[in-house]
Structure formats: structure tokens, C-alpha cells
């Protein structure tokens, strides 16, 4: 297994170190101690998983994007809790409750992903319209089921441990995130599916002539996005011990920001999982730094917006240089 270190990867590694160092200087040593590192790592998965979904959708090309991620994540948590509330008592059978919670949430994510996949691959909707519609639909269902209020799960030991307890120094949900990222990375890089997905995103026409089953690939891609979103939903429920319809209302932006910052091409055909992971960690460190410095949420959103435009600008610049090199 060879491992390329390209410019994007080196850049993201430097950004991670730089933001950590900035935190060490601005906040003090407490920013770099094990507790803070663990707490930051625990916060990465929810956004990281959504960003991986956005990456997959973007790679598939043709304006591919998944705007429904956080909506589906919240909906899976809401449905899983509502189903279990009256059937399994979390006090008597906490382990059973946690596993069924995860199972139902994953099922909801699968169904939601299949819906997106069907609309985009079979019904031929553009990804923007399809996921915009399902975003409203998923959010709307979550609002309707909860009457618009947050539902507290209470303390459920196994679920809480998954969200907040480190094992061997690594928070469990972060370990799961890394594992999912690793699997996804291997699939993208070494499996026929990954190769076909990248080809499809690079040049849909050529892929079609090469006999690649475009519809099946798109369907699988958006289904995977749905499943990733529901894993994010489980992590959110475990970490916050509650489910609500409007959790993470700026996550659509941040997930796209993470993907764009990781060098995923919005036009499709290119994206590396390791870069998305590093991009997610660097943004999380930055966000924690803002926390320590008591910077308001509004200003944080401003920073994310500016960063998104800046990274779009720099990736656009690279593309131009690349074209020039190609011609000359």
C-alpha cells in the first residue's frame, strides 16, 4: 500500500499543527492537554461523517451534493428514540436500548439514503433539488414527530460511553469515525466501485461509453451518504443525550466547507478521505479555539463562510495553473 503525500495533504497537516500551536500560545498549555484533545476528538465525528457524505456526493460529479445530511441525522435519532420510548426501557435494558437505537437509526439512514439515491439515479432529479427537497422533508418529519421540541434521552450508560468515554485514550466515537474513514478510503482507492465512482465524476460521458453502470453507482453513493448521516445521528444522540430536529443548523455549510477545504473538487472526480479527516480535525481545533476565546457563534459562522470562499478561491487558482501547464 503506497501512500502519497500531495500538496493538499501536506497543507492540511501544517494547518492542523499551526492551529494547535496557535491554541497553545493563545490559550495556554491547557489547550494541549489530554482532556482537551480528547474532548476535541469527540466532537469531530458528527461533522466528519457528514463531510464524508458530502465528499462522496461531490465526487460523483454532475453537480453532486448532499444537502440533506444533518436533517437525516436528526431524523434518524428522533425516529429511533420515538420507536424505543414505548418498547424498550433504557433503565432495565440499557445495552439492548443502545443497540436497538443504533439499529433503527441506521435503518432510517438507509431508507433516507435509498430515497435520495432513487430520486437522483432513477427519477433523474438534479442532486441539488432532490436533496433540498428531502432536506425539507426529513426536517419536516422530525418537526412533526417531536412537535418541534427537543427530546431528552436521559442517562443511558452504554450510549453515553460511546459518545463520551475514551478507551486507551481515544474517544470511542472518534475511533469509530477513523475506522469508517479507513474503510471508505480503501473502498475508494482499491475497489472497483471506487474506481468507477471516480471515473464517473471525472467524465460521465466516457464512463457511460466504458460501460459503467452510472445509475447503480449513483444510487449506491447516495445510499452510503444516508447511512453515514445516520451514524452521525447516533453520535449526536450519544454525545448530547437528546434528539432534536434543529441540531447543528449550520452543519450543511460546515460539512461543505470541510469537503472543499480537503480539496474535494465540487465538479466531481477527485477527493481523498484522509484529507477530509484532517480538514475536519483542523476545523474542530479552530472551533474549540474560538470556544476558549469566548468568540460568539455569529462570528464563528462568519469565519466559516469566509474560509469557504477563500478555499474556493485558492482551489480555483490551482485549477487555472493546472490548465496552463497542460497547454504549455
Amino acid at each position, binding site marked *: 500500500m503506497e501512500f502519497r503525500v500531495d500538496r493538499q495533504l501536506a497543507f492540511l497537516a501544517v494547518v492542523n499543527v499551526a492551529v494547535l500551536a496557535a491554541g497553545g500560545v493563545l490559550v495556554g498549555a491547557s489547550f494541549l492537554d489530554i482532556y482537551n484533545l480528547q474532548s476535541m476528538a469527540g466532537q469531530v465525528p458528527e461533522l466528519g461523517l457528514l463531510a464524508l457524505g458530502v465528499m462522496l456526493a461531490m465526487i460523483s460529479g454532475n*453537480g453532486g*451534493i448532499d444537502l440533506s445530511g444533518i436533517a437525516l441525522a436528526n431524523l434518524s435519532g428522533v425516529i429511533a428514540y420515538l420507536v424505543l420510548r414505548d418498547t424498550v426501557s433504557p433503565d432495565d435494558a440499557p445495552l439492548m436500548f443502545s443497540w436497538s437505537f443504533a439499529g433503527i437509526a441506521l435503518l432510517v439512514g438507509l431508507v433516507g439514503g435509498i430515497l435520495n439515491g432513487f*430520486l437522483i439515479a432513477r*427519477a*433523474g*432529479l*438534479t442532486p*441539488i*433539488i*432532490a436533496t*433540498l*427537497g*428531502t*432536506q*425539507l*422533508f*426529513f*426536517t*419536516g*418529519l422530525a*418537526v*412533526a414527530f417531536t*412537535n*418541534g421540541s427537543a427530546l431528552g434521552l436521559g442517562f443511558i450508560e452504554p450510549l453515553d460511553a460511546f459518545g463520551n468515554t475514551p478507551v486507551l485514550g481515544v474517544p470511542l466515537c472518534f475511533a469509530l469515525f477513523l475506522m469508517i474513514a479507513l474503510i471508505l478510503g480503501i473502498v475508494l482507492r482499491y475497489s472497483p466501485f471506487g474506481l468507477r465512482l471516480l471515473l464517473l465524476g471525472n467524465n460521465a460521458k466516457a464512463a457511460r461509453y466504458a460501460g459503467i453502470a452510472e445509475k447503480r453507482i449513483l444510487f449506491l453513493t447516495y445510499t452510503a451518504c444516508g447511512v453515514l448521516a445516520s451514524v452521525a445521528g447516533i453520535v449526536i444522540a450519544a454525545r448530547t443525550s437528546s434528539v432534536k430536529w434543529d441540531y447543528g443548523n*449550520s452543519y*450543511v*455549510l460546515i460539512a*461543505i466547507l470541510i469537503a*472543499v477545504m480537503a480539496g474535494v473538487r*465540487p*465538479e466531481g472526480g477527485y477527493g481523498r478521505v484522509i484529507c477530509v479527516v484532517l480538514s475536519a480535525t483542523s476545523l474542530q481545533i479552530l472551533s474549540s479555539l474560538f470556544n476558549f476565546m469566548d468568540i*460568539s457563534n*455569529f*462570528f*464563528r*459562522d*462568519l469565519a*466559516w*463562510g*469566509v474560509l*469557504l*470562499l477563500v478555499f*474556493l*478561491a485558492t*482551489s*480555483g487558482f490551482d*485549477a487555472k495553473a493546472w490548465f496552463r501547464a497542460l497547454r504549455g
Partner: protein
Amino acid sequence: MTDTTFNGATPDGNDKVSLGSAWRWLLRHPPVVTFALIVLVCLVVGTINTDFWQVSNLFDILRASVVRGLFALGVLVVLASGGIDVSFTAIAAFVMYTVTMLVTNLLPGLPMPVILLVAAAGGACFGALNGVLVHALRAPSLIVTIGTQYVICSFLLTFVGTALFMNIPGSMEAFGKVALFTHQSANGSISVLPAFVLVLAVAAVVTWWILERTLIGRAVYAVGGNPGIAERLGYNLRTVHIFVFAYAGLLAGIAGVMHVASNRLANPFDLAGTELEIIAAVVLGGARITGGSGSVIGTLLGVVLITLVSNVLILVGIPSTWQLAIIGVFIVLAGTVFSLRAKR
């Protein structure tokens, strides 16, 4: 024989050929589908709850359509050019709040036409910035405008203010109160159709004129249909990009002021988050998100449909919490129907 069917009766007895051709005709005329949906919703709601058939209800729907309609006309022009804009609500919120603030604090006597001009110019500047960014960054307009949406909205909340303006300038309040038509119902209650619905009417006519009767309108559809060919035909992509986003921004600025005038307060948290239902309305009106199509009349019908759905659910006993889910279903269904049309 089709000429034996009565006017208004459902052609159940028709053979498959004419059903098929009717279906094809409908797909070529998306506004008809939208209109049929409106009639259907009205009939269903009106049958379940006869309170629906009231002039005051009609006035409410028209009044609520003004801000949405102004937004939607801007989105229509952007969609027709093959782009998408999600930052218009942020632009509107920024413009309405800063303009209200400036007029209240510095120039309380400013007349309404000047306020409207300032708002339109401010909105157009933000929109032009969108256009420049979309063109210069060569990135999908969705991603660019998500970025500018957050920048504009958070800049407003971080640096301009978060407090409500309860006392809006007198000229704006007076403008919101001017009645176009007053109706007194049988039980003595008075309902008023505000004159600012005319602003939407003017904007609709102007947008129709730009899209159908001017060179830039041709350019918008041409670029939306196929940017590569349009560029080779001599259309300037940069001009079109800047124009469509600036026009959407201009309408958003006006919509922001209309929002203040009709609600009699300026809340910086208002409007944000409504962009999806506006895009839904335009798509329901038959505009394809891939560009090159869409009509003013379809867009207005889409707006009426969305407003109808948000206003009348309560009347038929559906809790308002279901509103979002239903709008979501509408987008998906309309998108599917119109994508089938595209395949033909």
C-alpha cells in the same frame, strides 16, 4: 370523439392516445400543472372547511405572497441562467435591518421611494458581489452563495445588531398601511388588501419584460441552456452572471423593506431559513434547476401554491408542524415530474 365531452367534465372515457397527449401537453406547460394543484388544494380545503371561502383569507394569501414573490422572481432569473442563489434571504435581512436602523437613527423623515431605492441599490451591490464571486471562482453557485449567505448573515448579527426594531420609520409604517381595497364582510369584520401588493405586480411585469423582451433576457436563457455555446455565440458570461445575481439581490433588498413595512418591525433573525421554500416555489412553477427555462407566471403560481399550503393547513386540521414535510414532498414531486419532462 373528444368534442362530445362536456366542458369541465373529466375526460374519463377518453382513449389512451388523448390521455397521453394531454399528459404531454401538461408537461410542456408546467404552469398549468401548478394552477391545477392550486385549484385542487382550494377545492379540498374549501370542502373540508368552508371558512376558507372568505375574502379576508384571499387577502391574507396575497399579502403573504408579496415578500415570497419578490424573492422568487429573483431566484427565477438566477435559475434561468443555470445558477442557484441561496443568499437572498441573508441579503434581504441585512438590507432591511441596516436601512431601518439608518433611517430611524439618522434620517427619520426619509420618504418611502428613497428608502426603496437605497434598499434596492444595497441589495444589488451584494448580489453583484455574488455574481463576481461565482464568475471569478468558477465554482458551483450553490457553494459560493452558501458561503456569502453565512458571511452576510453573520456579519449582520456580529457587527450590526441583534435587537428588534419595534418603532419603524413613519414613512415605512404608513406605506404598509395604505389600502388598495377594503372589504367589509357580512359579520362586519373589515379586511384590507394592502397597496404594497402592487410592488410585486410591478416587479413581475418588469421581470417578464427583461426575460422576454430584452437582449439580456435572451442572454440569460441562452447561458442557462448551454453556457459553452452561449459564450461562443458572443454572449458575455461575466455580464450575465453579474446581472442575474445583482437582479436577485435588488429584488431581495426591496423584499426586505416590504417585510418591514408589512410586519411593522425589523427583526434581524427573520427571513433567514426561508430560502428553501422560495426555491421550492420557483421549481414548482416549472423552472428547471439546470437552467434555460422558467416563466414569471409559473413562478407566481408556485408562490401562491406554497403560501396556500403554509396558510391553510390549519384550516383542515393538519398541525402546522407538518408544513415543512409537505413542502418537501411537493419539491420532490415537482422535480420528478419536470425531470420526466426533460427526458422526453
